[in-house]
């Protein structure tokens, strides 16, 4: 079986710090894999290595069986990424931004693609508005549209619903759920929202201090650790014995 994503023995060392230590996992087609862990545990570093933004110290990331380090440009056509920490140029309109990224990803019939995404993500009414003038919920949907402009097979979502109101958050979650099923997309979801992870993810990876410390389905992890929900599991795994 060919996995869209295979991560083997992946490590990243900086001069004074080990950010990621020898992690291994795979993601299948249609799967949404949750990546959980406290701030600074290595989630973003892992995603950055999978996107080819960061060179691993050791290990390999295979996208559709090909090493991202050896074929970065070609493989980036198949992927995309959304994070609240990166933005689109504020002075460009939504449509202009989507056209720019459509061009960068080599999308044919980019205007048709924008129409399709505008309809699906409810962007039509502010398509000609400057991106900097949008509310955070609208910006989030625009970022999602940018992340889908190339119809990626693999999507990396870093806290995709952070700072969204409940209605917009639910809209985005439902959209992601549908996307994975209808487009056979493989999604890696890094989130601090445990309910979101439980709802969307088939499997979950738990990271701490650069290590993968546990993995399983949300229900397996809850049962294994004798807790009532995923948040309790997260707290148990991340609190040391002398903390309260």
């Amino acid at each position, binding site marked *: 079986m060919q996995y869209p994503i295979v991560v083997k023995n992946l490590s990243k060392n*900086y001069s004074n710090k080990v950010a990621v230590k020898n992690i291994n996992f795979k993601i299948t087609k249609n799967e949404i894999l949750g990546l959980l862990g406290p701030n600074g545990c290595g989630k*973003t*570093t892992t995603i*950055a290595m999978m*996107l*080819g*933004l*960061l*060179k691993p110290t050791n290990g390999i990331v295979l996208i559709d069986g090909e090493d991202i380090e050896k074929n970065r*440009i*070609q493989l*980036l*056509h198949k*992927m*995309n*990424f959304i*994070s609240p*920490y*990166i*933005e*689109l*140029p*504020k*002075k460009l309109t939504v449509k202009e931004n989507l056209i720019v*990224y459509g061009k*960068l*990803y*080599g999308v044919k019939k980019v205007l048709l693609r924008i129409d399709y995404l505008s309809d699906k993500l409810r962007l039509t009414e502010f398509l000609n508005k400057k991106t900097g003038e949008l509310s955070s919920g609208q910006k989030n949907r625009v970022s999602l549209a*940018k992340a889908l402009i190339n119809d990626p097979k693999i999507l990396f979502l870093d806290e995709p619903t952070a700072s969204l109101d409940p209605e917009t958050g639910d809209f985005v979650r439902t959209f992601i759920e549908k996307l994975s099923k209808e487009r056979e997309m493989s999604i890696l979801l890094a989130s601090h929202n445990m309910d979101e992870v439980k709802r969307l993810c088939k499997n979950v990876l738990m990271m701490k201090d650069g290590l993968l410390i546990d993995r399983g389905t949300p229900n397996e992890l809850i049962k294994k650790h004798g807790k009532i929900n995923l948040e309790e599991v997260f707290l148990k795994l991340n609190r040391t014995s002398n903390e309260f």
Partner: protein
Amino acid sequence: MSFNRIYGLFLRHFFLIKSSLPRILDLIYWPTIQIILWGFISLFFSTYSNYYNNTLGVILTCAILYDFLFRSSISFNMLFLEEIWSRNFTNLFIAPMRISEIIISLVITALIRTLIGLVPAILITSPLFGISILNLGIPLLFLFLSLYIFGITLGLFVSSGLLRYGPAFENIAWSSLFLLAPLGCIYYPIEILPDMLQTMAKALPLVYIFEEARSILVNQYVNYSNIKNAFVLNIFYLFIGITLFYYSFRQARKKGSLINIGE
């Protein structure tokens, strides 16, 4: 009034400055460069007051040429800086764009930005001062091309620094050309420099470009060896600039600066 709060705010800036070599350099070299540049200009005019028949024409033409160089370089840097300021940098580097494509795209966009600034400047010199840069004739094309290549090369050097060191390198982006201006002999001949600086200046294409502009305007003589020397040096520096940009990208991928460059 609280001494602790004042000291705290002092420390906030002190920590920022002491952890960044580019910021320290920026503090030191602005005043130094200004003094050197205007010192040489004054010295030249006091020593060679009969040198030019056409002082205004020469100075204005050189100012326009220098501005073209300045705008080419700044435009290249600005395009890079805008991605950092808008926190769009990561988006750009996860798009399937080759480094060569990024460079070419910046070179073309910078040229358009530069021409937008240059054309009005050329147009107003004629009615205001009775001077036209077009008096330089066909060699003007070579001079512009040469200046543009050097401007882009400087842009590549600065962008390499931005890739590697992030926004802390921003001030160098604004001021890189002022560092070279005194050595570039824009408004005065190379002979005005002390011997040691003349040797350094000869390694810059600027000296040959501006020497040529003055030669045409003052002596009505085109010295193609100046144009050739400028191009040879330009190709050499452009090669180094491109190599450095690739090297900085590889280093940024190792150090992680492509992820957190806007922070």
